[in-house]
């Protein structure tokens, strides 16, 4: 019964979304207050309906209602509850429903949080959101309906692919989708601005929190995906330059650029056309990302079996949304007046260069991912590019990007004092040189290129630290009142320092794991020992352990520090799942500050077992870097200046009284608006 309600809600939501689209555009055009208000209601109703549909589908998974085709194909009664819940979005139909749920959630948030927005702008933004929702909902209802019944009721389901029965599935796709869909908001704002023909600093201030939130989720989603692919064997490690990984990385690159040029619109009323273009491109890349994963267009490790009939619908949706918005851009972009002037040596100049580099980096990834398709279409020759291609193209582009990232925050808007900056950069360079020399001395030898990478990362971290040091007034040595100065510094500034340093930390992890890891692959009888770098690994044997819906063969291994004392104990597993007659290999990982000890079991032969042991240097730094970037983004998001509709006056109030609460900030903004 609940299922039928959910199905009905999904179909009804499709109609409401089309109303939202029509009311939004028409109401804003005619300046009809009633229609614009109806747009708000439609957005809220459409969210409630999709939420109801999602709840109904999740309920069907939890109670294992195998009369639903999607549940039967992807679930099983014996599956632990968490994976029955996560299984809701572990397949094509469910993941689309989750996507749409998040899309309508963002629209509903705009209705609830965006009271300060001009009503015509808000109606148009919701109109664009409604049309995206309409596209997805109709796609779902027509080609990928999660509520399809089957006539014969089976006794039990086929079960979820055991590889996907992982905490990674519960967390990675929702985060990634929150990021992808979050960029729809910047897209909708951009399209609305193109229709209205107006972009001003207020517009930049409205767009930024949505972009920032989307960026935070996407960063978290990519980091989680990287972590999942790292501990899951045979998925190519933390980054493989696989097409499916690349398509999530492209919106991240262009979203990062968008985030930074929206600041220029907000502060300096410049780079407007650039910002709109990035808003459109970022969401376009997100759509491409969603669909490439689901269309089977590209040869990928992460590919899923697909239904070719869906491909055409997807292609039409893509052509309409991307072609339509870029066409609108081409027609309307020339009407935007150029904004504030700036010297080449200025904050704007640095952001501009970084934006160009990010755009080109995204273009390189785009080329490497999609050009093989073009080559195949033209010559019939199937080719793929992998890590080596990006090592020679993407990585060299990152070097100047990181150098400029270190310099930019020291610069003032409009025109920076080159002499003063050079003095601070000299300090940064000095500290960086000392640290890099220490690293070279400690590691002794090996290729020189990793040291360059580490040097760049250290440069970035030190620059962020020195800039923060100066900003909170520690440069002149006064400790008194430090806490007040830290509290008075905008959270956005703290967030920037944290996120920039986080990227540096992640780069150290990436460089270290690529260059300084060691591995051993050998067959071992119980009691035997093998060398792993300077340490040793002892295999003690295996025993059988039951799991909730599998049985596991658990190995017992000990790592000996410097081949002498017992140090770490590791228990990798080989699991077999009877429902799908399939096994999984679970690696055992022990994380140290300078890397992971990573052990996996292979098959048994003649009483000996294959053991694969790795020391993966500095890998935890990658996750730490991701966490710092997310934390920086969240901190920046908590900046009260970013709250919708807060005018300049509040900043003066904040400067005068640093302990003012966010609530009174909102009150102040209301007062300022009415005055």
């Amino acid at each position, binding site marked *: 019964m609940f299922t039928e309600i959910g199905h009905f809600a999904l179909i009804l939501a499709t109609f409401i979304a089309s109303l939202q689209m029509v009311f939004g555009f028409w109401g804003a055009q005619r300046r009809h207050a009633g229609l614009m208000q109806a747009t708000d209601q439609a957005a809220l109703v459409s969210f409630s309906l999709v939420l109801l549909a999602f709840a109904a589908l999740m309920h069907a998974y939890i109670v294992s209602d195998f009369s639903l085709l999607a549940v039967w194909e992807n679930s099983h009664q014996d599956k632990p509850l968490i994976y029955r819940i996560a299984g809701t979005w572990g397949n094509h139909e469910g993941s689309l429903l989750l996507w749409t749920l998040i899309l309508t959630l963002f629209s509903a948030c705009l209705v609830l949080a965006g009271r300060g927005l001009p009503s015509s702008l808000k109606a148009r933004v919701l109109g664009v959101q409604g049309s995206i929702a309409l596209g997805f909902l109709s796609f779902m209802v027509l080609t990928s309906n999660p509520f399809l019944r089957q006539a014969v009721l089976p006794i039990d389901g086929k079960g979820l692919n055991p590889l996907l029965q992982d905490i990674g599935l519960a967390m990675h796709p929702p985060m990634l989708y929150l990021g992808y869909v979050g960029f729809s908001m910047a897209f909708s704002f951009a399209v609305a601005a193109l229709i209205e023909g107006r972009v001003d600093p207020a517009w930049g201030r409205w767009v930024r929190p949505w972009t920032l939130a989307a960026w935070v989720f996407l960063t978290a989603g990519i980091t989680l995906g990287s972590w999942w692919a790292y501990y899951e064997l045979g998925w190519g490690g933390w980054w493989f330059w696989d097409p499916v990984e690349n398509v999530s990385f492209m919106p991240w690159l262009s979203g990062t650029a968008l985030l930074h040029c929206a600041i220029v619109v907000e502060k300096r009323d410049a780079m407007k056309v650039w910002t709109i273009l990035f808003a459109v491109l970022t969401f376009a890349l997100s759509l491409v990302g969603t669909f490439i994963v689901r269309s089977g267009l590209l040869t990928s490790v992460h590919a899923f079996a697909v239904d070719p009939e869906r491909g055409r619908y997807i292609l039409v949706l893509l052509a309409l949304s991307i072609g339509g918005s870029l066409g609108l851009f081409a027609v309307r972009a020339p009407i935007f007046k150029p904004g504030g*002037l700036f010297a080449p040596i200025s904050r704007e100049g640095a952001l501009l260069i970084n934006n160009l580099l990010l755009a080109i980096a995204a273009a*390189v990834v785009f080329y490497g991912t999609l050009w093989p398709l073009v080559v195949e279409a033209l010559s019939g020759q199937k*080719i793929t590019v992998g890590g080596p291609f990006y090592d020679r193209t993407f990585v060299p582009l990152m070097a100047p990007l990181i150098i400029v990232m270190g310099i930019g925050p020291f610069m003032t808007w409009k025109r920076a004092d080159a002499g003063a900056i050079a003095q601070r950069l000299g300090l940064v360079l000095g500290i960086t040189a000392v640290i890099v020399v220490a690293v070279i001395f400690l590691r002794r030898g090996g290729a020189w290129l990793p040291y360059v990478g580490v040097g760049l990362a250290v440069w970035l971290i030190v620059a962020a630290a020195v800039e923060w040091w100066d900003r909170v007034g520690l440069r002149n040595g006064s400790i008194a009142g430090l806490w007040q100065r830290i509290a008075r510094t905008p959270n956005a500034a703290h967030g920037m320092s944290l996120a920039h340093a986080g990227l540096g930390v992640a780069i150290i992890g990436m460089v270290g794991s690529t260059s300084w890891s060691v591995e051993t692959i050998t067959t071992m009888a119980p009691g035997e020992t093998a060398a792993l770098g300077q340490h040793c690994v002892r295999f003690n044997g295996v025993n059988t352990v039951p799991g909730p819906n599998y049985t596991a063969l658990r190995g017992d291994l000990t790592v000996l520090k410097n081949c002498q004392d017992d140090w770490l104990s590791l228990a990798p597993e080989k699991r077999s799942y009877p429902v799908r007659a399939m096994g999984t290999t679970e690696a055992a990982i022990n994380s140290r500050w300078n890397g992971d000890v990573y052990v996996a079991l292979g098959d048994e032969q003649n009483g000996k077992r294959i053991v694969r042991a790795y020391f993966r240097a500095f890998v935890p730094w990658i996750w730490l870097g991701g966490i710092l970037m997310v934390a920086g983004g969240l901190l920046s998001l908590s900046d009260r200046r970013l709250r919708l509709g807060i005018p300049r006056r509040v900043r003066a109030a904040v400067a005068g009284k640093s302990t003012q609460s966010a609530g009174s900030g909102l009150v102040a903004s209301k007062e300022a608006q009415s005055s």
Partner: protein
Amino acid sequence: MAYSRKSQRLLFISVGLGLAVIAVIFMALAFSSTAAFFKTPSELQQETAADGQRYRLGGLVETGTVVKQGTQTDFSVTDCEASLLVRTNVILPDLFREGQGVVAEGQLDAQGVFVADKVLAKHDENYMPKDVADKLKEQGVWQGGGGC
């Protein structure tokens, strides 16, 4: 320093173009030397061996051909027309099974054995490389997933 809208735009365009040109040069150089050709076993058999060219070999793991010896695994990859011996030392993914889709990346040695340094299976056990599926359809033995 005097700066105007014109010089600002000029700077913007010249920096952008400069970076783009450098990136294009990088890409052109890297693409020709790092691209791996995706081949099926019957296509790869016609190639001359051991010229250092990297390939991705896609097909099905032929049933009954998987031989494990120590850390080394030998198996045949087939596209139902020809098969090719693959030798590898790496961890085989969990979804690596006889009769199912696989992609191996590596080079041909002098004996015509495909030495793979990467063996990938898909997330989805019904998945089959598109080329192989097309080939099977051509030959009329397509069964909608599964072996030859």
